[in-house]
Every structure is written in C-alpha cells, then in structure tokens.
C-alpha cells in the first residue's frame, strides 16, 4: 500500500462515504418512521391543497388562470393604492414598488441605477429577479389588512398591472400561467443577482467558502481610525426620547438626560416614580375599544397620537368631535380627500361596532 498520506486520506474518506451511504439513509429513516407510533397522521389531498400555496421561480405551484392589466387597475385602485399609491410609487407606508427601471434594463436584465451611488432608494421592480416572487407574495400576503382575500384572477391581474406600471408588459396585456415564463425574460433585474458568496450555510448554491472581508487582529500601535467622522448632531439628542428613562436606575451608569443640553455633565437623578409613569398608559388603554380597532385592522393605518397612513385618532376627534353618526357612516363607506390624497377603503364592519368606535372618537378618543 502506498505510504502517501494524501492517498491514504482519500481512501479513508471513500470508506467513510461508503459506510454512511450504506448505513444511514435507508435504515435510519425506516427506524425513525416506526419509532414514534401514533404521532402524526397522513394529510388529506384537500388539506395539502388548502395550504400548499407557494409558487417557485420555476413556476411549480402556480395555479392556472389569467388576469388583465385593466382588471388589475380596478383591483389596485380599490385595494392597493391606499398603501402603495395609485402608480405604485408611494413612499408613505412602504418602500415604493415602481420606479428606477428603464427599457434598456428590460433588455439587459440588469438595472443600471443599482450601480449609481447617487440614485436615491431602491424599488421592488429594481430588485426583484423572479416574477414568481411577486405573484406568490401578492397571493399570500396582500392586501395588507386582508391577506389571502384575492381571487386567482385578481392576483394575476394585480401582478399584470404592477408589471405594466414598470413598462414590462403593455397596457392591453393579460398575464396567465401560459405566458408568465416569457414575462420573466423581461424582468429588469433578472440577471442582477448572485449567490456567489459565503453567507449561505450550505453548499446548495456552490457559493464561496471564504468570507469576503478579511480583517487581522492587530494588538498594539495599530494603524487605523483616528478621526471621529460621524456623531449624532445635538439637535437630534432627544429624538429617541429621554435616554435617562431608558436605562436602569442603579448600577455603574445612568442614562443621559437628553432633555438637557449635551455636556451638562452629571447624570440627573431620575425620580423613582418613573416606573409608575411607564405603567400608566396600560391602565388607561381600557377606555379605547382596542379590540375593535385591532380586529378591524384600523390600527394598520391610524395611531393615537401621530399620522400614519391616515390621521391620528386625536386629529379625527378634534375635527369631528360630537359627530358620532357622521363618523360611523364614514367608517362603513370609506372616503377620500378629507385628510389628503390617500383614500380610506370602506370597512366591512357591523353597524353596532362602527357606532361604538364612532362614539369613542366623537367623545374625544381618550387613550
């Protein structure tokens, strides 16, 4: 036998692989299938169909169907525009979906703006590399406050409309399971992605084994950073609230009192009454019809004290104090133009529940 350590090692590895292949899969699996009798049962075909909704980049899982850009526009305006804007461009609630791509990108499959340091922001259409991802996510998670409520036709239609906004498909296009693979060939960033990195934990993508950033652990007189280049400006000192109230009241340090100017020196003593103040909103919250507001996903667009998608409860109460009937009707019918460009969709809520919320708002929207 050869004395070469290299050959010996490869022989040993082959043996290990042989033993593993022979011993592991079949018998280990058999034994564990029988090891836990009575645990788990077979899923019925209907159960699998009810939950197995994912669509892969090779379109495995995509249901048959079709939807037009025109139909998509209708669905969009009633169910999507309130968060994403009429043209998918809105940055009010979520990052913009559309913008930043060109006809040239559609040809090359690389979004040129991604190479620019000065291009502000990245839209979904600049990033997405597989059209299945759009279809799958709209189908499983949209609209935001009523996920999984779209029909298959509506998902095709909304996807078509979104692609049309990005000039990937024409105005008269109907997206279907039959032509979606051709649409994939027009996605602006289909070629702009890579798995050649070391941050996937397995070898499935055959990425690289070595991390991309290689630092050394110098211990003394190290070259390096000497100049402070970035620090929060003084005017932002209190932007995250009073840090004195975000730190423990005992121990090696206190939180800085950011209601006072920087450099005021000594930690200000925080009265022990602070915890009681923190607990207060919880007790008071019982007054608001929280469960109704949450159940009807009002809280997705409204907050007690600041503007989200729509006005705060406080603002509504201020403008429409005492007008419970008006408010109850608005909740059920929806509306637009009163508070800016973002419309409020009609809520499917019982008259009684809408009345309760309206009365609370009309009475001042106490937290």
């Amino acid at each position, binding site marked *: 036998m050869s004395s070469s350590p290299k050959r010996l090692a490869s022989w040993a590895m082959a043996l290990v692989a042989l033993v593993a292949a022979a011993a592991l899969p079949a018998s280990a699996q058999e034994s564990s299938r029988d*090891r836990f009798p009575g645990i*788990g*049962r077979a*899923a019925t075909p209907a*159960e*699998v169909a009810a*939950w197995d*909704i994912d669509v*892969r980049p*090779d379109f*495995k899982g995509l249901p048959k169907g079709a939807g037009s850009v025109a139909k998509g526009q209708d669905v969009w305006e009633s169910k999507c525009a309130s968060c994403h804007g009429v043209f998918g461009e809105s940055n009010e609630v*979520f990052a913009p979906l559309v913008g930043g791509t060109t006809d040239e990108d559609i040809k090359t499959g690389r*979004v040129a703006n991604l*190479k620019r340091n000065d291009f502000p922001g990245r839209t979904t259409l600049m990033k997405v*590399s597989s059209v299945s*991802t759009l279809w799958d*996510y709209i189908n499983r998670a949209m609209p*935001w406050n009523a996920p999984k409520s779209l029909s298959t036709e509506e998902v095709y239609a909304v996807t078509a409309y979104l692609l049309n906004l990005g000039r990937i498909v024409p105005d008269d296009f109907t997206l279907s399971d039959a032509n979606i693979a051709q649409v994939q060939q027009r996605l602006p*960033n289909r070629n*702009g*992605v*890579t*798995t050649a990195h070391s*941050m*996937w*934990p397995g070898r*499935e993508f055959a990425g690289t084994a070595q*991390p991309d*950033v*290689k*630092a050394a*652990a*110098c*211990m003394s007189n*190290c070259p*390096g*950073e*000497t*100049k402070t280049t*970035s*620090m929060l400006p003084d005017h*932002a*000192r209190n*932007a*995250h609230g009073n*840090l004195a109230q975000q730190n423990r*009241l*005992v121990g*090696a*340090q206190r*939180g*800085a009192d950011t209601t006072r100017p920087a*450099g005021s*020196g*000594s930690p200000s003593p925080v009265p022990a009454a602070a*915890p009681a103040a*923190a607990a207060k909103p919880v007790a008071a919250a019982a007054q608001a019809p929280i469960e109704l507001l949450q159940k009807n*996903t009002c809280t*997705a*667009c409204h907050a007690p004290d600041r503007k989200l998608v729509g006005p705060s409860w406080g603002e509504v109460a201020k403008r429409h104090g005492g007008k419970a009937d008006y408010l109850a009707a608005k909740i059920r019918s929806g509306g637009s133009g009163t508070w800016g460009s973002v419309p409020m969709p009609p809520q499917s809520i019982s008259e009684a529940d809408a009345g309760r919320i309206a009365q609370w708002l009309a009475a001042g929207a106490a937290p």
Partner: protein
Amino acid sequence: MNRTSGRLIKAPENFIDRAGVGRVFAEAKEGRRDFLRSAFAAAAGVAAAGSAVAAQPEGDPNILNLPEHSKGLGQPVVTDGYGKPSRYEGNVQRRQSPGLTQTAQASVSFAPLQSLFGIVTPSGLHFERHHQGWWDIDPSKHRLMLNGMVKTPKVFTMDEIMRLPSVSRFHFIECGANTGMEWGNVAVPTCQYTHGMLSCSEFTGVPLITLLEMAGADLKAGRFILAEGADGSSMTRTIPMSLVRSGEVLVAYGQNGEMLRPENGYPLRLVVPGVQGVSWVKYLRRIELGDQPYGTKDETVHYVDLMPDGLHRQYTSIQECKSVVTTPSGGQVLLDKGFYSISGLAWSGRGKVKRVDVSVDGGRNWRTARLQDPVMSKCLTRFNLDWVWDGKPAIIQSRAIDETGYVQPTKPQLRGVRGTRSIYHNNAIQSWLVQESGEVRNVQLS
C-alpha cells in the same frame, strides 16, 4: 464629585439654591436653629473641596434609619401568579425607533441590551419583528404540515409534537437588518437601537429532521425546505437541507423554560441557529421539501445585499462574527472616574466565539477580554475587561474572533468590500466615545 460607591454620598456643591437659602433663613427666624447649623455645615464641608472626612455626618441615613421593609410585614406568597420585574426596573423595556417604520404591524422593537446581564434575553424583552401583526394562536387548533418530496404528507398537532423527545439549546437570533441603519453614518444613540434586534434564549423543540424522516422524506433529492408561517403574511423562507440534516434546525415551542411568547411565534416556530431571524419562521404551519430554492420575497427582494458593482447578493443568511460593548454604551453617563468592568456580547453564526479584544483608545491598542462561561456555538458570549477611567475622553470598541478564525472587521474594512448602500449584515466594530462629562456617545471613525 466624590460619589464612588461604598463612600458616603454627600450633598453636591451649591445644593442650596437661592430660594433654599431664603427658606433656611426664614426657618431660622422661626427658631429652627439646629437645621440652619447642620445645613450650612454640610454646604461648607463640600465647598472645602475634597475634604471628604470633615463633612461626614454620623453615617448614611439608608443605614442609620431602618427602612419600612425592615420593620413591617411584606407581601404574601403568590400575590402575582406570574411574577413581574421590580417596579424599579420599569425603564428596562423593548422600544421602537421613532420614524423607522410607518405601521406598527410591520415593525420592530429593540431589546434593551444596555440593561441585560449574562447571555439570556428575558422572554418579555426579546426583540420583535412582525410582518403583518402578531397573534396569540390557540395551540389546540394549530397544525404543522409536512409535504413536498416526502413519502406521506403529514399533519402534526401541538400535542403530538410535544410528545416527541425534545432537545433544548441556547442560540442567538439576530435580524439581518440589525445595525442596518448605521451603514453610512451614525443614526441612533444607544446600543438598544444600534444592536437590539438581537436576543438569545434557550429554545426547546424537536429536530426538524426527525419530523421529515417520520414523513419519509427524500433526503437525497430534497435539497431545500420551505418554511411557512400561519400569520397574515404567511412568511416563507428557503432553508438548506444540509443544515436541517445536521439536526441543528428545530421545530420549537419552548423558550427559556416556558412556551414561546406570542410575539415570538407561539405556539410553534422554526429555530435556525446562526442564520438571520427572518428564517426562524414564526407561527410555523408548513414545511415543504423540494429540489429547488423557493425565491420568496424575503430572500430575493429584501435581505439582499447590494454590492458596489450593482449586483444583489441573494440568499445571504449567515450572521457573521460580531460583538458590541453594552456597558458602558451610547446614551449612558458614567457616575465617576475610577474602576469599571467593560462588558459586552459577542456571537458568530459560524460557531463558537474564540476570543474578544477590547480597545479604549479607538483601536490603537487592544487587550484580550475575559470570556464568561458558558461559551456555546451560535450563541451569545458575554465578555468583560477591567478598566480604570481617568476622566479623559476614551473610545471603546470590541472585536470578536470566532472559531473559524474570522476577525470582526472595522467599518472601513467592511465598506471597502461591500460599499455603503447595503442595509443588511452590518457586523462592523462599534465605537463608543466616553466624553469628559462622563456621557457616552455613538461615533464612527475613519
């Protein structure tokens, strides 16, 4: 100021303001001469800077006057069936960063790392990330389905999963976007907001491979799984089978000895050690085994890393070696000059932390910190280092090295390769500037 622990805490200079002086004289006129004398004696003592002994009264009133809790009857047992922290700990809370997200149902809360000890995050302080709001799901109605490349698609109830032999392991979970706001410059003041999308728990559950084998999984052709949640977003994520086969990936229901908290996926979530939090699918309802990756939203549109050449790295999952000093850290104020134990957390998605170095001069010189037991794989490791603060400005940093030899990079080193337009996977060395006033600020250096 002489306020070092163990010595008498004396009144600070000028503790009697003008109104106070007026009151003292008024009360003196009414005959309270004893009060007048002692008040001025104390003030004079402090004014004679440094003469610590001269000013001391007979002792600390906290010792001399027995408090109520030493002289009365306390609360009975089980006043509170599920105990809460002391009311004096009310400042230790999860918090949102203002303006980070527009909707509270697709938002994050940050764990208060600056106030935690050891490596375990109390379950109620575990950071949160929700995609479409959290739910408190009835466990008796929750189901887990396994399908795809299996001999028999299977359904398990919670009762059945909890009948199986369980394992319990400590692991960190970190959001891929943790520290993401700091890629370009300083954006937030404290380590709660820079690093608080990080938590560590003991998770209890069943290795996913066991369930897959029970369903007769095709372990040769099945190279990826899809994990899917039961909440509105039905979050999905592709996980490599190589990691599942290792037995590390758990279908977990336990967290720190109790059931998972609803905000963290009650009653069932996936645990994927070393991999960013988005893959630890909450409210886990389904596992599908397949031969291709799934191209889900959060691996192809989000959680993609934009490189300087305009390419997006997809399926970036591992949280690389990283550390942060939590004590002292941004937004805090040191009480006084003198001794401190610098302490912080280190972790690596590739295994164990091997070493942590700490610098107090902005990275010029480093000393090796003590690692606190236990040191576990893909888990937080607590480190500390003795330090005597001389009252001069200091820049505190920590640098972790994991068992693969990977060294946590500086910000310029990381940016040198990845540019500045990334959002995810910022594992650069953090710098805290201790100012002469004792106040600690978040800074970046070059």
